[in-house]
């Protein structure tokens, strides 16, 4: 091997076929090298690529690099954003754990503080007051310190909520806009990822988070649930009870589409949001026209 070949061995194009043997840049191995390759030092890659026969000329080299870098980076971005949905799932689960643990510990802290100080209040706010006290002696120090842990956990919960607010729109722009960042994150977490959510039928999305009720229904002990966690959405919660089924179905239908657009294209799609707003306006207009109890369950998936 000549020196040139040794030098070229580190370049992104080292595994590529020579010029003219295939569509420029249309080579998965080259894209993988761009994404994952390394070199200690830069070199005159265009010159080396021409010398090694990878490209016919510097211009040809740059054409191939353009094609390969655009495709490789587009793929890498997709992959990274997909990985980000897993981070969102961790964040939302951690947030719930912090909240639950903070509340549990707050109870313990309040009980203890009540035995030591006058006027100790329950809950996180109670813990906050206790945490600010000047402790006297070892036991008070421990009780006050425990209350401080409660306050820290509550602050961690809030910080996680902020992180979710910020990252959910990057991971799933349409879903986050439609559901709000927190509900979007919960839906993704319940499904186990954005891709799995995107592949679920809208009837399943509608009852995600109502697994217990669904199980009761399937074993013949209860009516079929009309909504799962999407109940927390304003469109469902603030719709009168007789129209809630329609509202939940319409919302779940659009949320499912939003998750698909987010997973497959990642672009914001205004029409989705408009259609849902219109559909909701129609459903709510029923209440105003005094058309009580109309048409629950007669609507198709919106």
């Amino acid at each position, binding site marked *: 091997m000549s020196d040139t070949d040794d030098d070229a061995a*580190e*370049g*992104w194009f080292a595994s590529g076929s020579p010029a003219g043997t295939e569509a420029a840049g249309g080579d998965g191995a080259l894209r993988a*090298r*761009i*994404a994952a*390759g*390394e*070199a*200690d*030092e*830069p*070199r*005159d*890659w*265009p010159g080396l690529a021409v010398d090694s026969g990878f490209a016919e000329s510097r211009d040809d080299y*740059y*054409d191939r*690099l*353009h094609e390969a*870098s*655009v495709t490789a*980076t*587009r793929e*890498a*971005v997709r992959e*990274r*954003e997909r990985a*980000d949905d897993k981070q969102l799932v961790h964040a939302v689960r951690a947030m719930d754990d912090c909240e639950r643990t903070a509340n549990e510990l707050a109870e313990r802290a309040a009980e203890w503080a009540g035995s030591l100080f006058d006027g100790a209040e329950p809950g996180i706010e109670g813990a906050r007051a206790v945490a600010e006290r000047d402790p006297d002696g070892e036991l008070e120090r421990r009780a006050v310190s425990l209350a401080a842990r409660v306050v820290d956990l509550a602050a961690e919960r809030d910080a996680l909520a902020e992180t979710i607010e910020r990252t959910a729109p*990057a991971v799933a722009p349409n879903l986050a806009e439609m559901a709000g960042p927190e509900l979007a994150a919960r839906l993704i977490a319940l499904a186990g990822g954005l891709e799995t959510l995107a592949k679920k039928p809208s009837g399943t999305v509608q009852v995600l988070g109502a697994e217990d009720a669904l199980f009761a229904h399937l074993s013949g002990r209860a009516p079929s649930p009309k909504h799962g966690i999407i109940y927390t959405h304003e469109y469902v919660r603030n719709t009168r009870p007789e129209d809630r089924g329609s509202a939940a179905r319409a919302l779940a239908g659009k949320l499912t589409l939003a998750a698909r657009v987010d997973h497959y294209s*990642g672009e914001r799609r205004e029409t989705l949001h408009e259609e849902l707003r219109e559909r909701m306006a129609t459903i709510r207009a029923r209440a105003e026209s005094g058309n009580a109890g109309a048409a629950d369950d007669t609507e198709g998936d919106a």
Partner: protein
Amino acid sequence: MTDAELPAGVERREIDGETRLATRGPPVYGEPTADGWRAWDPGRSKLGGMFELGFETGLSGGETVLYLGAASGTTVSHVADFAGPTYAVEFAPRPARDLVEAADPRDRLFPLLKDARTPERYAHVVESDVDAIVQDVATRGQAAVAVRNARFLADDGRLLLAIKARSEDVTAAPETVFEGALDRLREAYEILETGRLDRFHEDHLGVVATPR
């Protein structure tokens, strides 16, 4: 107001009734255009601000450029319009998605999803002896990033750097931050010119440097 010459391919053009810095190329971020020229807003671009403020950038057009912190491609798309082969490094996936779209129609703009703090991860793609490094990363350790990337720059090449004071330390006075950054830069560079970009970008220092 400026004496320094603009590179070939960057012109002051009449767009929407105003004389504005502009380059020729497909529009990227909804900027106003006229006759195929796209307005280059110095308020949205540190390098645009440096041109407006008359920095001696050493750019004359057609250069090979390494751009660090390309974000969604606002500035680097203008650079690719007047420069030669342009490597654009950005580490955040979200803006990189738009960067790819800006690069798609520009056949000498190469987008790379990489961290500018680890040049080994793109030294197998970015060629040696580039004529200019443009850097606008706005994260802590800006001078260190420029020092690590000096390996790509030709001996007579130019570093065109924007340093954001608040990215290093929100509490310290900008002057102190800038001094510290310039000291660090001198490990690898000779500083040719510095100037505040405040007219366009608050608390930013523009720096022109060349390898030592």
